[in-house]
């Protein structure tokens, strides 16, 4: 009986442990913390479970998007968020 319980415990451990944690993060998806736009640039801050992401997209005066900037950091976004 003790042997059976040991197998059951190990089995449960393996079964729960088989869930890849990173997939859980992916499923939650990045949440938009804030975004702001000027005439030629648009900035958006995203937050995942483990990191923040700042994207800055700029169009040239002709309307073509020419700047794409992505910055990341660990933890929670602690930077500037207008309004």
């Amino acid at each position, binding site marked *: 009986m003790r042997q059976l319980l040991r197998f059951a415990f190990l089995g449960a451990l393996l079964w729960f442990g088989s869930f890849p944690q990173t997939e859980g993060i992916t499923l939650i998806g990045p949440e938009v913390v804030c975004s702001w736009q000027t005439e030629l640039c648009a900035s958006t801050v995203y937050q995942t479970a483990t990191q923040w992401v700042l994207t800055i*997209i700029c169009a040239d005066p002709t309307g*073509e998007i020419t700047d794409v900037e992505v910055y990341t950091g660990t933890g929670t976004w602690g930077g500037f968020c207008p309004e």
Partner: protein
Amino acid sequence: MGWFLSRIILTLTLSSVLHLMGIPEVRGQDTLRLSPDLILPARLFGRAFDLAVDRTGHLFVSDSRAYRIYRFDAQGTPLDTIGRRGEGPGEFKDRWIGLSYLPATDVLYAFEPLPRRLHAWKLQPNVHLLNTHVLSTGDIGVLLALWAWSPDTLILYEQRTRLSPLQSAYTLWLYRWSNRQRSLLFTLSPPEALRTESSVVSLPFMPRTLVDIHPPFGIATLWNDSLVVRLRDLQGHVRAQRRLPLHRRVPIPQTTWEQELERLRRRAPVPLRTSHLKQLQRTFWPYVADLLLDDRGRVWARLYPDSPTWTVYWTEGRGFVALQGKVTLKVIRQHHAWGIRYEEDGLTSVVRFRLPEDPN
């Protein structure tokens, strides 16, 4: 970069601009020079962003300050407006509004790059909204462009950011309007970028892939540091290619590089790591800033640098064409080219050029 160029180019003539680009017809006698035959003046717009022309000749101009689309008749008389600022169907959250028109169905499409929203209006007998779609927003990305390909089918050009490792993917998608399903066409090379472990930065002067699509001719792509335009089918197979007759390449000046880094520092709201963004050693001025296919499937390439008084295009069959003013063409069909003209003071007007009979 703009300041640097304007200081250099302010006094350049068309001939000297051509010379700077290494164009063989330096003397200018072989370059077709065109002035607009129709001007929709800047006072009509806050800032013209994109335009489309329907089969009746009506002109649609999106305005990034007014959050709407203006409609004009073929003579440039204002008719009415489409959309307004808002978050409902047919309303715009984003000040950038791109346009595409499909003659076969007489439908005007508009897209908003950042919220990744698509709108469709049937234009006849009266303009009415068909629907507004929101693309999935479960990731980090931007809709760079949209083309109407056939009834019910759009082509989307999208940038998506992937985390760990940090990278950007640039992909073309087929999008079925009726069932909102998308399928991958193919992936394009991402722009050259400054990379650290925690940042990817692509700046305007860095080489990148330019794309234009015109049914039924296909997809034109150009890695603008290569000067070779490839025409692909929807499977991504290269069916033809054109080599642009440009020769000179110039490295980025140190002053331009420093100005770009300073611009980065000012714009970003976090203490960014620009101090260890080292200047790329192999970056050259992209000589093509924009790519366009006309209604016969011919390539038009806007060359760079330009000047405040002339914009130079290279086009198949016609060679070099110089347009009066700082102009980006948006639509070329039936012997007319429509574009947006940018003034030194930041104002924008819409211009039309009549193209002479095709020599070929």
